[in-house]
């Protein structure tokens, strides 16, 4: 469940953040203002509050979020906001001359963005994205508070049934599990990063 939550929210975030990042660096002040407002609003409120609002605060007709859906949507939207900000930083990190050269060559805006800016921005942000992913993995534990049966929730259930010292045991196991899950992410991102650096300078 933890992995499912993390990966779905991450998938939503990594795709959904693209248009938002474009909006954040738009030259149209209204678009920029609207996206900036969204990002700051989402980031300004703790994840746990968003999850409670989604789970218990929204009722449209007979529709209510079930816990898992609320958690995925909540974590997903928060990921969109954080990743959009990371993307924007990456796009701004690409030297100005790159866009100018593309313009001078007569490349279209789309080509310039997707073939010149994005690949370079991706190299800049890939470590930050990996850091965010490990953060998200651990933040997914917040979903336990809206009765999503992920790892921490199950530890709590166990602890409640065993109110002695052994109640601690599952937390220790869960802690180790988080480490085991986040290590490969860190490792893969380092490999990816060094490979891309080689690709640029080799």
């Amino acid at each position, binding site marked *: 469940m933890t992995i499912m939550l993390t990966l779905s929210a991450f998938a939503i975030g990594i795709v959904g953040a693209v248009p938002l990042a474009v909006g954040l660096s738009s030259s149209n002040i209204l678009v920029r203002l609207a996206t900036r407002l969204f990002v700051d609003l989402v980031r300004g409120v703790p994840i746990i509050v968003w999850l409670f609002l989604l789970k218990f605060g929204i009722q449209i007709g007979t529709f209510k979020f079930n816990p898992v859906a609320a958690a995925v949507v909540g974590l997903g939207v928060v990921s969109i906001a954080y990743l959009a900000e990371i993307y924007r930083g990456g796009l701004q990190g690409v030297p100005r*001359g*790159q866009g100018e050269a593309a313009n001078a060559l007569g490349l279209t805006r789309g080509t310039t963005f997707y*073939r010149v800016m994005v690949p370079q921005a991706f190299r800049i942000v890939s470590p930050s994205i990996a850091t965010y992913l490990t953060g998200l993995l651990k933040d997914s534990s917040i979903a336990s508070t809206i009765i999503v049966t992920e790892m921490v929730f199950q530890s709590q259930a166990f602890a409640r049934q065993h109110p002695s010292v052994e109640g601690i045991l599952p937390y220790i196991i869960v802690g180790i599990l988080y480490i085991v899950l986040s290590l490969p992410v860190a490792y893969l991102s380092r490999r990816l990063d060094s490979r891309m650096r080689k690709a640029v300078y080799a």
Partner: protein
Amino acid sequence: MFHLLTTWKITMPLSEIADGRIAPRFGIKLDNISKHYGDHVVLDDVSLHVQPGTVTALIGPSGAGKSTFLRCINLLERPDSGTIQVAQHTIEPGKDVSSRDLAALRRTVGMVFQSFNLFPHMSALKNISFPQQKVLGRSKEEADERSMQLLERVGLKEKASQHPGRCSGGQQQRIAIARALALDPGIMLFDEPTSALDPEVGLEVLAVMRELAADGMTMIVVTHEMQFARDVSDTLVVMADCKIIEQGDPRAIMSDPQEARTRRFLRAVLER
């Protein structure tokens, strides 16, 4: 002029540049170009007419507006007013510029930057081929063939598969020149192409530019290389304080400047 274009399109030999059978040459007319940022004037009613096949060197103290003026030619900077006439297109940058005119302008005018601006995530070959495929719609094979010809021409054939990060500044600048030439521009703009290079490495770039000038490319060059300006350019343009203060034969101006400001500038750069 037209039959030249067609033969060249079919055969596309590299030698076309060497023996002068190049794409049609264009002149360019810039009239009354003005630009300011807020209250700060950067270009004050500047006009310049460049004849096809000539080399124009733009010199002057820094802050005179040379680079800005050059960047206004292909609309990297948008002038507030004035007209640009190139290749049967008249563009008034103060008004809305249609994307068709803009595309035509950028196809006609190639540019080389002080900081090279090669795409670091592409090999040298890809840097030159990619724009050809996107802008001219050439196939990958056609584009690569043309790129290899140009790389050979600038003496960097063996660098084709290398990324720019592995090339020296001078090599990068020569690749950047090849990239611009690959789109068969009628005019080439050079924005201080050797300023980021140490003097020795700058020579290899200047050599390519001399060759290009000898081939009859229309060139506008912002430079601090006085030797190059004197020997290679047909017209020397001196800018100071957002204006063109003097223009004409480079040797005449350098030996006998008419303006006090020109004299002061030339003394500073020549007598050091």
